[in-house]
């Protein structure tokens, strides 16, 4: 799939360089701050488990207690392990319970005590990271044994009943019917919870909560199915929202394979504070890098609020930024499921060829990344017959432009969360297109229209990046550059969970990553 557009290498290099310059100040910001969720993620790796009777996880109670006593600018690790050492308690979870009950107080040790606390913290979190490493090795083994999907793009299907025990058979059925990747989408609102719910979900709204237990149950079920179908079936969830770092951690601990994880989605679509988001995403990506998880970014969402033609270059800019942030956090190219979508108004003349131009541009800008190709949603209507047709052309565009991960569109997109039969019809659609026309790229040689459009989008992207370099990324976000959502850096949810780190900030996990 090399070079159908003949992009000018110098122009591409310039775009990357601009993205790095635009992104660097934000990286610096992320390096100099921590958040409550980053600290909770550290504690999760250190072994704190479970929740209080109200469902508030002990990691939250513990971080709150530490913060109340000594603040977070030093990190939780040292005060917690100092307290552990001094309390005679063996288990960090028990310590958290005591702290919540007010029977433990935290302080900052110095000298030898500090060194001991660090050593203890490091040992505890290293155990957590070892579990993550074991899971990754486990995945590698299973892929070796069962194999990868036989075709590209990989077929990605969503389940969303709100009940994990209903989700499981549906996910298994989907995998048997051909899905390579299963995503359990989350209940509405989880993004804004500043804690990760516990246990198996029986009643979510338009999705099922991301919990460690749900992850475990679904992964185990899909391991069974992988064996049955002779192909490793991947599991996806969302490291997004106020608990990005923790969910990434749980994903690593439970061997999830892909995670939705975007550098700006939470800011734009959940009104989460920009700094909170940038700090959280950096840590969560470091975890993903370690866990061998493929991230999926969220540029597709911009095209649900902005126009897919007018805003095409904002997708490109965001992909370049996501790439820069991801590399900085240690992710390799094969882990970058950069997002984009088939969202052009289908009534527009040459709409399909414009889609091809956009999709091919992404493909050729990021040749090693397993791009995530999202189906039409905005222009889907209750006319389900038309919907199935649009999804077919979306599938074709995916095959023609060599996309890596094909999120399967549902004819009922504008109606309901997918029914069992919708998924079956959708998979049949994908199978027909990939089987009958999957090799059509051999006969696809973009002409002047498609090449011209791709060049235009790339040059608009460079223009926008230049402006961002001048004005600063935070200001660009505040101005509504992405998805027409205006998000100033000093507003948004979760800001009070952001803390500038002190000189003595210690995070045993970051050190390792």
């Amino acid at each position, binding site marked *: 799939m090399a070079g159908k557009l003949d992009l000018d290498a110098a122009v591409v290099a310039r775009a990357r360089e601009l993205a790095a310059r635009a992104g660097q100040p934000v990286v610096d910001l992320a390096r100099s701050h921590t958040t409550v969720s980053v600290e909770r993620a550290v504690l999760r790796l250190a072994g704190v488990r479970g929740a209080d009777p109200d469902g508030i996880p002990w990691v939250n109670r513990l971080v709150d207690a530490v913060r109340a006593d000594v603040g977070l600018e030093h990190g939780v690790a040292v005060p917690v392990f100092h307290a552990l050492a001094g309390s005679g308690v063996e288990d960090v979870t028990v310590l958290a319970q005591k702290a919540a009950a007010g029977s433990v107080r935290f302080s900052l040790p110095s000298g030898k005590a500090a060194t001991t606390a660090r050593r203890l913290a490091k040992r505890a979190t290293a155990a957590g990271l070892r579990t993550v490493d074991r899971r990754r090795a486990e995945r590698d083994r299973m892929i070796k044994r069962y194999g990868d999907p036989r075709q590209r793009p990989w077929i990605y299907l969503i389940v*969303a*009943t*709100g*009940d994990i025990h*209903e989700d499981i058979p*549906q996910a298994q059925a989907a995998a048997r019917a051909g899905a390579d990747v299963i995503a359990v989408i989350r209940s509405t609102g989880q993004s804004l919870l500043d804690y990760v719910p516990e246990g198996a979900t029986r009643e979510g709204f338009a999705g099922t909560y991301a919990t460690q237990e749900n992850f475990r149950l679904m992964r185990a079920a899909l391991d069974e199915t992988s064996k049955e179908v002779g192909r490793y079936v991947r599991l996806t969830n969302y490291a997004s929202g106020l608990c990005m770092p923790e969910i990434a951690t749980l994903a690593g601990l439970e061997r999830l394979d892909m995670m939705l994880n975007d550098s700006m989605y939470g800011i734009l679509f959940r009104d989460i504070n920009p700094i909170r988001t940038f700090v959280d995403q950096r840590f969560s990506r470091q975890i993903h890098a370690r866990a061998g998880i493929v991230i999926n970014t969220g540029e597709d969402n911009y095209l649900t609020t902005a126009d897919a033609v007018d805003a095409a270059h904002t997708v490109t800019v965001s992909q370049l930024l996501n790439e820069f942030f991801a590399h900085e956090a240690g992710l390799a190219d094969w882990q970058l499921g950069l997002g984009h979508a088939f969202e052009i108004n289908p009534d527009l003349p040459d709409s399909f060829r414009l889609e091809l131009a956009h999709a091919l541009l992404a493909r050729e800008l990021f040749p090693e990344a397993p791009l995530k190709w999202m189906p039409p949603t905005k222009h889907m*209507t*209750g*006319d*389900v017959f038309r919907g199935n047709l649009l999804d077919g052309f979306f599938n074709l565009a995916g095959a023609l432009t060599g996309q890596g991960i094909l999120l399967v569109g549902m004819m*009922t997109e*504008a*109606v*309901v*969360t*997918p*029914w*069992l039969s919708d998924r079956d019809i959708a998979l049949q659609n994908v199978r027909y297109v990939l089987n009958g026309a999957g090799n059509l790229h051999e006969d696809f040689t973009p002409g002047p229209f498609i090449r011209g459009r791709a060049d235009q989008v790339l040059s608009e992207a460079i223009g926008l990046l230049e402006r961002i370099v001048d004005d600063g990324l935070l200001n660009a976000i505040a101005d509504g550059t992405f998805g027409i959502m205006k998000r100033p850096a000093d507003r948004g949810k979760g800001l009070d969970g952001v803390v500038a780190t002190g000189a003595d900030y210690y995070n045993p996990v970051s050190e390792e990553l």
Partner: protein
Amino acid sequence: MIIRPYGDTTGDGMVQLSFTLPIPHDKRAEGAALQLANRMGMDPAMLVHAKQMGDGYTFFVVYGKVTHLVDTDQVQVVERDFPLLSAKEVNAAVKRGLRRRLSVVGACIGTDAHTVGIDAILNLKGIAGEKGLESYPELAVTNMGAQVSVPDLVETARERKADAVLVSQVVTQRDAHLHNTRAMSAAFREALPAGKRPLLIVGGPRFDELMAADLGVDRIFSRGTTPREVASYLVHALVGGSK
């Protein structure tokens, strides 16, 4: 067992419905569409799409929950009430039971020219990996082809001393298949006394298998029939006590 339609949760009762009403599109038309959905037992019914076609018609798509229950114990079907035999067994049964070849006459009657279905049953080539009745040495098959008139069919059946007459009907507009089948069975009743009448079989993709008595035939075969099923039935009905 009592069950309900399944959208994405057990018992949710969800179904999809589409239809056209002969009225232009406006709020009242949408209300009329919902009224129909309600009368069909959908409650709540969500009107998710409405599109006017020409001046006076509107197409609707409705999703919703049906209140009806399905009782699988009350389901009536024509279950196969005879053993499915291999070609070898069929031939052996005919040889032993009849001591002569069994004569089969097939045709598409009326103005129907869709022979692919009857050919699938009769011709060597067969369908779904099974050879057609012509491949059975003990069956004497006459395939009259398409657009055969009922008198010609009766005549040929008489000539060939047909044990069974196989008729195909594919076109169903204005119930053509039902009219033609009734005309055919009436003609045989008229032409031949009860004992002399061949077994009457009709087939085609849109028949309701429960209607045999109503149409005056012995058996109906519908979508996806294979030659072996028909051969086995012939043995069961004409040779009897086989195996």
